[in-house]
């Protein structure tokens, strides 16, 4: 049983469609849970259920140790930022932010000082007198944030709160949220589709798909040891390469054989895992495929592959090649020597590899 939030066997249907299936997850005080998953997988719905805004079809929700399954939203002591903002159209920005405090009977002075704080953090001081209709998308989103941040609830729920902000502001806001989390020990459930946000903020990540939880773990676990190909594919950008390969036991480890176009198969030795055998999927992140020349010292296993596409992107260059009959992306430095059509000597870092069954996509090792 978890401290702040504890969800047990939660189901949610809209009519006949099951949106959430058997959700079990909990967080302790001060934890930062990030929900990720493809668009439409039920993240917002889950937040709504936690907040009590949607009736649930089965299961139970406890907040701060109390059964809240049938408690009205206002008594759940949560703050929430809506994906759709949901600003009060007739109130000024300032009023939008202070409304909750006012309802709770917090005194004017506190209201004013909190408002001032939040407005500064969110850089919306000049906008306080405006109506939501007079704001830009990002400004609206910040006001929506402000509404939550002035509160001091048991639990914060954030639904993609930074999606309409520019990179700089986003980083700043991220920092604010992190600070809020650390300084106040606030507990949070946070939906985002931004990998960096997920990775940098979360103490725990939940990956969902089609209303079912795929994996729960720390960012590091999720990133390095995805529970299945879905998670592997979903987390990280560009995604983890899932390269069809054949494994045969080989002494203490396994030998991994990967088909190459117009050359004989690449043979790599996986020293850590002995049990691999038959058709497998080798999961390797783009950054774990190096340009052999730049990293001569590291324990990489090399192989030349013909480069299909070279796509420079600021600090990195993405290089696409065909391996095991699939396109494989590697992330190389901006100064890579890779040229389209030429063969590049790659270095594979199998110490970071994952292995999956091709059929179910479950993790093997």
């Amino acid at each position, binding site marked *: 049983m978890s401290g702040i939030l504890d969800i047990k066997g939660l189901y949610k249907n809209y009519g006949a469609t099951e949106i959430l299936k058997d959700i079990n997850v909990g967080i302790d005080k001060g934890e930062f849970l990030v929900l990720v998953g493809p668009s439409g997988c039920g993240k917002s719905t889950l937040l709504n259920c936690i907040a009590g805004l949607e009736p649930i079809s089965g299961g139970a929700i406890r907040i701060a140790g109390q059964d809240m399954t049938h408690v009205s939203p*206002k008594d759940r002591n949560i*703050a929430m930022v809506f994906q*759709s903002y*949901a*600003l*009060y159209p*007739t*109130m000024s920005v300032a009023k939008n932010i202070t*409304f909750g405090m006012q309802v709770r009977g917090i005194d004017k002075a506190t209201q004013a000082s909190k408002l001032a704080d939040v407005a500064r953090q969110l850089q919306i001081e000049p906008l306080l007198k405006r109506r939501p209709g007079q704001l830009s998308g990002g400004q609206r989103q910040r006001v929506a944030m402000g*509404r939550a941040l002035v509160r001091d609830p048991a639990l914060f729920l954030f639904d993609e709160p930074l999606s309409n902000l520019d990179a700089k502001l986003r980083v700043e806001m991220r920092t604010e949220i992190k600070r809020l989390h650390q300084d106040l020990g606030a507990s949070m459930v946070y939906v985002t589709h931004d990998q960096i946000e997920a990775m940098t903020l979360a103490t725990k990540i939940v990956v969902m798909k089609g209303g079912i939880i795929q994996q729960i773990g720390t960012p590091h676990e999720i990133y390095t040891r995805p529970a299945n190909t879905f998670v592997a594919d979903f987390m990280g950008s560009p995604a983890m390469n899932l390269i069809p390969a054949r494994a045969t036991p080989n002494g203490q480890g396994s030998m991994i054989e990967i088909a190459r176009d117009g050359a004989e198969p690449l043979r790599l030795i996986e020293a850590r895992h002995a049990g691999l055998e038959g058709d497998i999927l080798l999961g390797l992140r783009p950054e774990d495929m190096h340009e052999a020349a730049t990293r001569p010292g590291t324990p990489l296993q090399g192989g030349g592959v013909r480069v299909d596409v070279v796509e420079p992107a600021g600090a990195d260059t993405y290089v696409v090649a065909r391996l095991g009959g699939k396109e494989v992306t590697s992330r190389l430095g901006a100064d890579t020597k890779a040229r389209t059509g030429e063969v590049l000597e790659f270095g594979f870092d199998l110490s970071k590899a994952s292995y999956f069954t091709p059929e179910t996509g479950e993790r093997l090792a």
Partner: protein
Amino acid sequence: MTDATYPAQKQSRALQIALRWGLYLMLSVFAVWYLMPLFVMLTTSLKSLEEIRTGSLIALPREITFDAWRTAWSGACTGVKCEGLQPYFWNSVMLAVPAVMISTILGALNGYVVAQWQFRGANLIFALILFGCFIPFQVVLLPMARTLGLLDIAGTIPGLIFVHVIYGVGFTTLFFRNYYVTIPAELTKAAKIDGAGFFRIFWSIFLPLSLPIIVVTVIWQFTQIWNDFLFGVSFSQAGTQPITVALNNIVNSTTGVKEYNVDMAAAIIAALPTLLVYVVAGKYFIRGLTAGSVKG
């Protein structure tokens, strides 16, 4: 290559101006149609009885006289008293203002419940309340008279207010409910999270959004109540009769001499408060109250 209808701008600009003119023309034509009876009434009210008797009914007055207006306001006989509409005016005000307010507030709350706080059976209840709009008032007259007698408010202004509220609430609920269903549910959600309860959300979020529909409702209710005759005549007694009864007494005597000029003036005078409401309330037909509330 590009989309099928590609514009010819120069022409479209001219067209726009032409359309605009057409629009204003059309609006004016309708305005004339609407104004026609008022024109007849106004001109008649400014004529002398002599001129009405001898001249054409639909013509400008040969000589303008305001006597009829004066008589209608303070001199026309409505029974043994010949004090015009004046004494009845306040009865109507005292009746209409609270009745409109109460029924509007009730309707707003009901509509708010039905549109945003759906519970099982809410729609059925709404339908039942709504159906009440259709009950012929002639039908309710006698049982209601009995009820008012039992409640001991027969013949009083509170009794009349009661009746008007009962039979007005169906409409006000209808108006508000149908306006509120178009307001995104996210607003209620956000306010619930903010800790606001039922009434607070209503007061702080929904009422400010409701200006146009409040206007419509007030216009409807005020007109209905102010102009009501049947309830007014049945459930009042000497001293509480509303202005419509007085107007009717001036206009509708069967065998007395008909003074059309006074009739028309009286009708216009009786309508002035309603007109005032239209003009004042009309300002609140504001566009885009929900602007910027949610996306999607």
